[in-house]
């Protein structure tokens, strides 16, 4: 995922969002981060993140964590919600909650965090703990004092007696539970209190009365605070509450009652879900460039936390739609959902449903789905039966928009969970749809770019190497880590007037611009060699060809001419080749000026004779510059060592050994293109067959 894509995802984040590169520098800082840390984006960008937002005492741990992740890929804190202290620009500290994710971006990692200020929550928590302590004291004192303190608590408070009945509730709790007085509450059956709600935990599992912290306290346990989702069975209204219970003991130390503080955490729960979702969505996006898979993953993420059922459709230019993903909370219902969708017309009706969304680009929200609506929507009896069986409670449909064009829609349905949807759900769904839309667009662009790059690259290398009499040849081309860009390395072998020519080079730059230069260099080399095959003359012509281009076009190249055992070479700023034989490995040739770059030029030519069994190896700097452990480069010494070890072998074997050594050595993605040409002189043979030679030479690209 490139920077532009990340930024677009972040624009939809309502939380503070900051990103850091591998070197620990801040590379993204959104508007909310400016507010939260009191630091403008302009001042924040480029600054070391640790020194900007992390209190000094935590910095070392931060660095160790980053180092460990980069070294071993271990990131125990990634994707989890963490609470910690953060630093404002004015030096003050405040508590935050954050979710960190790591993304592989091109050939390095970047780290991203959503940050939420939880000062208010922390203050409320400590105030509540203080009151709770007082409350425990008061319970041993007068009833009057107790009432004063309990009513001072903003949250609902209940007290459960030993027989599991609620014996006290403050006003907030009475309102929440729907009782007029404490008297009425005392007489109610405690089991009936949960009756009007569907109660589930954060993991989606049902919560029973036995699971409530106050009930567990009465059994002598010491339960953790419990977060429960209440969905009103009548209205579909959803609420998240956190229950925290403490024991009240009598003079003998026996548990007498349990005090429960009920805190409404619906708002923060929603923000958290949103943060978690966006953090996970970023990872899902980065994980696959197959957009259908990505959309299935996105749909899967929405279920069950946000909806019971999520579907993604893409629109085509002919007014049709393609259903690409359906996720359902219950796998058994998935089949039903798919059958249901089969009833929807392939041709979209611009006046309703998906067709309407496509036309207007506006979200649609059904907070309730009355039976009349279902009857109206059903196309026949079977459809109606299915629709009713699904038991839809609420639904929303939001557009997937890319650069102002609606390319599809995301549908979410609430059924079994019984909850309704509101505006905040539509907003979240819109954010999800935006991420999903980007993933489709990125996947499409990426696959186009990859296809173009492959075609272009293959046009810049010979389709097959010619067979040169008395020589065995092998070549290697490894493009850098990402396959969507054309590399700048090239090589070629061809016949020119009875001689054999080899050129290997490296055009600085990447992509189409570099490909254009590469193409120019190869064509110039062919034409030059037909006219005068001396390597220096070939380089002279490439140099002047490059200098005629309007923008700086620089290339290094090594040109070699062989005629039987006799070889002549010249280098235009290119690493010199090595010759490996029984006597060891030596460098041949003399340095010459980089091509297309300078006015003061010199390309000294060197001629030498190859002995049978000697192998000439020409490389580009991608070989020697490959990065291994501890930032070490592969270097010339390693290359020489391999050639010494393999000098008796054929070029094919040498190539395989070199590739294996590079792969063993290399850490992280390959950062530069790599090209190698290996030519072994097998010894003078019979007079070469000229006709065959020429015809093969023409077989090149």
């Amino acid at each position, binding site marked *: 995922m490139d920077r532009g894509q990340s930024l677009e995802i972040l624009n939809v984040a309502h939380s503070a969002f900051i990103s850091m590169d591998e*070197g620990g520098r801040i590379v993204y800082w959104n508007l909310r981060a400016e507010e939260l840390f009191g630091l403008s984006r302009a001042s924040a960008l480029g600054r070391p993140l640790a020194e900007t937002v992390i209190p000094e005492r935590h910095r070392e741990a931060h660095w160790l964590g980053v180092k460990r992740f980069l070294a071993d890929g271990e990131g125990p804190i990634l994707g989890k919600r963490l609470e910690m202290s953060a630093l404002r620009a004015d030096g003050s500290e405040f508590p935050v909650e954050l979710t960190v994710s790591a993304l592989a971006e091109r050939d390095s990692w970047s780290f991203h965090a959503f940050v939420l200020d939880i000062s208010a929550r922390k203050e409320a928590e400590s105030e509540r703990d203080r009151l709770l302590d007082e409350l425990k004291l008061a319970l041993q004192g007068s009833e009057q004092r107790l009432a004063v303190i309990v009513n001072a608590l903003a949250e609902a408070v209940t007290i459960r007696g030993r027989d599991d009945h609620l014996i006290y509730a403050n006003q907030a709790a009475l309102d929440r539970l729907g009782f007029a007085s404490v008297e009425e509450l005392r007489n109610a059956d405690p089991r009936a209190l949960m009756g009007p709600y569907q109660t589930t935990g954060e993991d989606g599992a049902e919560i029973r009365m036995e699971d409530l912290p106050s009930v567990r306290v009465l059994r002598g346990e010491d339960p953790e605070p419990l977060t429960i989702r209440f969905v009103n069975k009548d209205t579909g209204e959803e609420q998240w509450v956190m229950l925290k219970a403490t024991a009240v003991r009598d003079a003998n130390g026996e548990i007498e009652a349990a005090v429960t503080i009920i805190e409404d955490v619906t708002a923060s729960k929603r923000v958290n879900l949103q943060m978690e979702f966006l953090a996970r969505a970023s990872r899902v996006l980065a994980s696959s460039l197959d957009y259908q898979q990505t959309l299935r993953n996105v749909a899967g993420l929405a279920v069950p936390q946000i909806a019971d059922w999520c579907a993604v459709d893409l629109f085509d230019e002919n007014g049709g739609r393609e259903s690409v993903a359906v996720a359902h909370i219950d796998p058994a219902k998935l089949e039903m959902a798919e059958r249901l969708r089969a009833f929807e017309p392939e041709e979209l009706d611009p006046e309703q449903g998906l067709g309407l969304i496509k036309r207007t680009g506006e979200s649609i929200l059904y907070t309730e789905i009355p039976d009349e609506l279902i009857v109206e929507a059903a196309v026949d009896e079977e459809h109606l039966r299915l629709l009713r069986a699904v038991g839809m409670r609420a639904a929303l449909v939001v557009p997937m928009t890319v650069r102002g064009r609606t390319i599809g829609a995301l549908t979410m349905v609430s059924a079994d969970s019984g909850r309704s949807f509101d505006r905040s759900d539509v907003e979240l769904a819109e954010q999800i749809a935006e991420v999903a839309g980007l993933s489709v667009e990125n996947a499409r662009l990426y696959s186009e770019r990859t296809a173009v790059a492959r075609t272009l690259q293959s046009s810049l290398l010979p389709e097959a190497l010619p067979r040169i009499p008395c020589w065995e040849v092998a070549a290697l081309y490894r493009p850098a880590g990402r396959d969507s860009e054309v590399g700048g390395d090239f090589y070629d072998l061809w016949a020119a007037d009875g001689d054999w020519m080899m050129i290997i080079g490296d055009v600085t*730059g990447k992509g189409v611009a570099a490909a254009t230069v590469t193409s120019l260099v190869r064509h110039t080399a062919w034409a030059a060699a037909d006219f005068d095959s001396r390597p220096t003359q070939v380089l002279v012509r490439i140099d002047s060809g490059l200098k005629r281009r309007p923008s*700086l076009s620089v290339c290094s190249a090594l040109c070699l001419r062989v005629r039987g055992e006799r070889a002549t070479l010249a280098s235009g700023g290119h690493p010199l080749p090595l010759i490996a034989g029984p006597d060891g490995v030596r460098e041949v040739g003399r340095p010459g000026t980089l091509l297309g770059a*300078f006015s003061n030029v010199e390309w000294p030519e060197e001629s030498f004779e190859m002995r049978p069994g000697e192998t000439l190896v020409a490389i580009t700097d991608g070989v020697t510059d490959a990065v291994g452990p501890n*930032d070490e480069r592969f270097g010339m010494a390693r290359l020489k060592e391999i050639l010494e070890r393999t000098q008796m072998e054929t070029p094919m074997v040498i190539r395989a050994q070199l590739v294996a050594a590079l792969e063993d050595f290399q850490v992280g993605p390959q950062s530069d293109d790599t090209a190698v040409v290996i030519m072994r002189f097998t010894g003078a043979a019979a007079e070469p067959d000229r006709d065959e030679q020429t015809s093969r030479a023409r077989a090149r690209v």
Partner: protein
Amino acid sequence: MQPAPFEVSSDKQGEDGKLALSGELDIASAPRLEEAADAMLAQPVRRLVIDLSGLTFIDSSGLRLLIALNDRANEDGWTLALLPPPEPSRSVFQITGADENLPFIDPSEQ
């Protein structure tokens, strides 16, 4: 992998702008040198001195940027001066003929 971090520090003295580089100048870090040079050249500077003595590595993209800056200097009428890099980055300048074509100065001349 954590590559040796590339750093550019800028310093302006009179009409001399100076950029001191350290770490690896390659395809990833070259844009940062270009930005720093652009920022320096946006000010009234007659000579841009780039100190390469802290370079641990330079690749063809880094070299190309230095060549491009030298071309710009010739066209726009300011002077580029380079302080030589240490071995082994120096060999890149030697094998490409850049040592004879780019305006290297002796460290004592600055």
